[in-house]
């Protein structure tokens, strides 16, 4: 009896392993494809059958960050030989690097959009997690009248479709001159992430025993000292996990960025798709821009994999 069962169990396990393998391949294939396309020479990006084996190039990344224009005439062999290696890569693609009057290389729109994304995502994450942590502590440790209602109000701000909030925000921002500014986006993303940060941090702080602070108070700490020296260190992993979630949300946000920014403060998510345009897009450059943009999130996901699992199911699963 027991032997029979282990055989069928083993068979089921084998089916599960094969199934998981297939699912993993299907789920990761699109990501693999974007990464591999970002290292392809342009002529191999859109071949049929698709090119799987090729010599990786970094020319898409060079082209991504430089401003280029179509070549009217071929560079002379002397010019070609005198040009630095990255300029030769652009020559080989049938384009040349655009320089200003002083002969300085011009950058494409991508690097500044990437930096904008970094500024907006990092600052709004710090603000949302900072405010979220102290508010969560307030709700977790003190009596608040109508606590459940307040918490629900905080959560409800997250449930609105971004476009709905964006219409009045656009008008208000236009009135006070916050459109197309970093500060404008930072405020929006902080407001957007704050609710999530409060809920997530409340879960983490609730799990820190109250006795820790009480012991600190007996030792002569003030409430504030107890919060900073006892509670915050205990909540460190929770803060890290919350920060990653807020960063990912702000980093990936599209609708507000599309509506509220034009140039100065534009982030990468509305910028990358706008580069496709009409005509024949250079998919290798678009893929390299996408790949660079995905990289921070992929690294975070890997580094914080264990906390992510807990954070993502917040509220749903209580031990």
């Amino acid at each position, binding site marked *: 009896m027991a032997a029979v069962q282990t055989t069928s169990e083993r068979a089921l396990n084998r089916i*599960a392993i094969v199934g998981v393998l297939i699912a993993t391949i299907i789920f*990761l*294939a699109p990501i693999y494809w974007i990464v591999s396309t970002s290292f392809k020479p342009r002529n191999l990006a859109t071949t049929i059958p698709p090119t799987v084996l090729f010599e990786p190039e970094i020319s898409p990344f060079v082209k991504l960050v430089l401003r280029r224009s179509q070549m009217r005439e071929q560079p002379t062999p002397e010019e070609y030989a005198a040009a630095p290696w990255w300029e030769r890569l652009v020559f080989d693609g049938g384009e040349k690097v655009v320089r200003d009057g002083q002969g300085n290389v011009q950058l494409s729109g991508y690097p500044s959009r990437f930096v904008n994304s970094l500024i907006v995502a990092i600052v709004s994450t710090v603000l949302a997690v900072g405010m979220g942590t102290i508010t969560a502590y307030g709700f977790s440790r003190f009596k608040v009248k109508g606590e459940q209602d307040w918490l629900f109000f905080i959560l409800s*701000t997250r449930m609105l*479709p971004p476009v709905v909030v964006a*219409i009045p925000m656009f008008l208000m921002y236009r009135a006070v001159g916050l459109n197309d500014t970093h500060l404008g986006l930072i405020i929006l993303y902080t407001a957007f992430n704050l609710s999530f940060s409060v809920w997530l941090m409340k879960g983490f702080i609730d799990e820190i025993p109250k006795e820790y602070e009480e012991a600190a108070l007996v030792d002569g700490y003030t409430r*504030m000292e107890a919060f900073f020296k006892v509670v915050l260190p205990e909540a460190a992993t929770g803060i890290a996990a919350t920060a990653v979630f807020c960063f990912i949300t702000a980093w990936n946000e599209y609708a507000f960025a599309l509506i509220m920014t034009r140039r100065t403060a534009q982030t990468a998510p509305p910028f990358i798709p706008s580069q496709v345009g009409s005509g024949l897009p250079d*998919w290798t450059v678009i*893929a390299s821009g*996408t790949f660079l943009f995905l990289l921070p999130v992929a690294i975070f996901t890997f580094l914080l994999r264990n906390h992510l699992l807990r954070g993502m199911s917040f509220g749903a699963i209580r031990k």
Partner: protein
Amino acid sequence: MTTLDPRSRAARRGLSDLSIRNLFIIPTIVFLIVFNIFPLLYSLGYSFTDFRASSNAPANFVGLDNYRTLLNDPFIWSNFAITAKYVIVSVAGQVIVGFGVALLLNRDIPFKGLITTLLLLPMMLSMAVVGLFWKLLYDPSFGIINYALGLGRFEWLSDPDMALYAVALTDIWMWSPFVMLLSLAGLSAVPKHLYEAAAIDRAGPLYTFFRITLPLVAPILMIAIIFRTMEAFKTFDLAYILTSQPTTEVISIRLYKMAFQEWQTGLSCALAYIVLIMVIAITNIYVKYLNKVKER
């Protein structure tokens, strides 16, 4: 004077608990009211006017005209119908794929942690950027999807009937991992002894699944469904980037076009309110189920 109560002693040296509580909570509440509730009230005012943000003409009060126009507009209803269809297809797909993969992963699988992490990647990405590169994958002449499935020059995004399903398919790829994650958490909470008892009773795998696994995972699966339903209802980026078919114009895209391309600010504020009321209705369902699950 000495007192043994640590709290009052600490309170006298630093801030009182009450002021700390207010200091910690009130700024957040004020911030959220200013940047979430105030704009909504602001647009409520505009929803009763014929204001256009593109012109300098002052706003005229038109009463409930905007709401009447919208509720009588068959195109708006078709936008809602498209949204509903999209929500149903993509959420159903995510539940089937996500729960299916979770069931497989719940067995003895080597490198389980690594695989789970890798499968989370799609949901960590930007929907706009995902939409962009799926455009490349869907391309009829050189996309790898057509090549891998041997479909020739199948038009995923330019065929009006197919485009919505293509968008939903991308959404399923992106968010099945979320359902999978919650399902895994639910599955791992099912007590092992129930399966042992079922094995002793010689219960078949189907019986075990429908009588033990499914009922115990159902509450968490329900939460995943509600979460995803609300998110799918809000969809904008993915559909907007992937294709511009009238058949994929979900309500958020209609709202965006009305507000920022046609500049019918007053009318779009009214539509935003109609959407808002629907979201509140869905949210209430969500809270009802959440409380039910917590009482479990």
